[in-house]
C-alpha cells in the first residue's frame, strides 16, 4: 500500500505535491523527479499549437493594421479618437480580473477545492459578461455615430479585430461554463486536468490578445 502510494506520488507533477493532506515525506519524494522532467505542458501540446497559431493570426492582422496606418496616419489618428477609450480600459481591467480569477480557480481545482473553484470561475464568467455588455454599448455607439466597417480602413480593421476577439470571448465563456459544470459534478482532478488547464489557457490567450489590441488600436493609433 505504502509502496503503491510512493510510486503514485513519484508520477505526480510538482504542483500536486503541495496539496493539503499530503505528508512531508511524500512531498519530498514527489519533488525530486520534477527536477528531472523538463516542465509540465498545461493541458496538451495540440492545444498549444492551436493557441500559438491563433495568436499569430491575430498578430498578423494587427501588424497589417499598423502597416496600413503608415500610409494614412492622420485619418487613423482621427478615427482612433472616435473610440471610447474608457470602455477599452474597463474592458482591459475586466479581462485581467477574469484571467486572475481563472488562474486562481485552476489552483483551487487542483487541490480539490471545488466550491472555491466554482465561485472563481463564476466570477470570471461575470467579467466576460461585463466585457461583452460594454462591447455591445461601444459597437452601438460607433455604428450610430456612422462608423461602420465601410467607413474606412481604420474601422474595417477595428471591427475585424474586435469582432474576432469578441467571438473568442463568447467561445471562452461557453468553455468556462463547461468547466463550471465539471466542478459542480465534483469530478476528480485526474479526469479533468486536461480540460481545466486547456480552458484556462484558452481564456488567458483571450486576455492577452485584448491587451495587445487595446494598446495598438485604442492607444498607439490615437497618439
Amino acid at each position, binding site marked *: 500500500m505504502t509502496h503503491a502510494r510512493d510510486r503514485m506520488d513519484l508520477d505526480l507533477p*510538482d*504542483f500536486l505535491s*503541495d*496539496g*493539503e493532506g499530503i505528508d512531508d515525506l511524500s512531498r519530498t519524494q514527489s519533488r525530486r523527479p520534477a527536477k528531472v522532467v*523538463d*516542465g*509540465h*505542458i*498545461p493541458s496538451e501540446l495540440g492545444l*498549444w499549437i492551436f493557441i*500559438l497559431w491563433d*495568436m*499569430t493570426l491575430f*498578430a498578423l492582422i*494587427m*501588424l497589417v493594421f*499598423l*502597416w496600413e*496606418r*503608415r500610409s494614412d496616419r492622420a485619418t487613423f489618428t482621427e478615427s482612433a479618437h472616435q473610440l471610447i*477609450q474608457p470602455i477599452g*480600459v474597463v474592458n*482591459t*481591467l475586466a479581462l*485581467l*480580473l477574469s*484571467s*486572475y480569477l*481563472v*488562474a*486562481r480557480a*485552476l*489552483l*483551487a481545482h*487542483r*487541490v480539490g*477545492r471545488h466550491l472555491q473553484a466554482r465561485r472563481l470561475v463564476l466570477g470570471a464568467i461575470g467579467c466576460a459578461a461585463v466585457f461583452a455588455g460594454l462591447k455591445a454599448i461601444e459597437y452601438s455607439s460607433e455604428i450610430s455615430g456612422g462608423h461602420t466597417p465601410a467607413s474606412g480602413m481604420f474601422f474595417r480593421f477595428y471591427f475585424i479585430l474586435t469582432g474576432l476577439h469578441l467571438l473568442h470571448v463568447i467561445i471562452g465563456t461557453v468553455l468556462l461554463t463547461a468547466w463550471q459544470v465539471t466542478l459542480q459534478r465534483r469530478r476528480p482532478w485526474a479526469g479533468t486536468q486536461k480540460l481545466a*488547464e486547456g480552458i*484556462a*489557457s484558452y481564456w*488567458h*490567450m483571450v*486576455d*492577452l490578445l485584448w*491587451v*495587445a489590441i*487595446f*494598446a*495598438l488600436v*485604442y*492607444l*498607439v493609433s*490615437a*497618439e
Partner: protein
Amino acid sequence: MNDATTRRVTVVFAGLVVATCITWWLGSESSLTGVGFGPAATLTILVAFTKVLFIGRDFMELRAAPFVLRAVFSVWVGVVTVAAIALVVV
C-alpha cells in the same frame, strides 16, 4: 493550495493593473505634450507586450513549462513587439 503560487499570481495581477493604468496614461493626449509620439508609442507597446509576457508566464503557467514552449512563446512576444515598434515609430 500552493500559497507561494497564489501569492505570485496575485502580485502579477496587481502589476498588470498598474501597467494598464500606465499605458492609458502614456496613450492619453495630455501626456503627449511632454513625452512626444515616438517615445510614448514605444513605451506603450513595450509595457503592453511585457504584460502579455507575464500573462503567459504566470497565468498560463508557462513558467513551469518545457523550455521549448517557453522559448516559442517568448520569441513570439519579442518578434511582435519589435515589428510593432518598427511599424509605428520608424
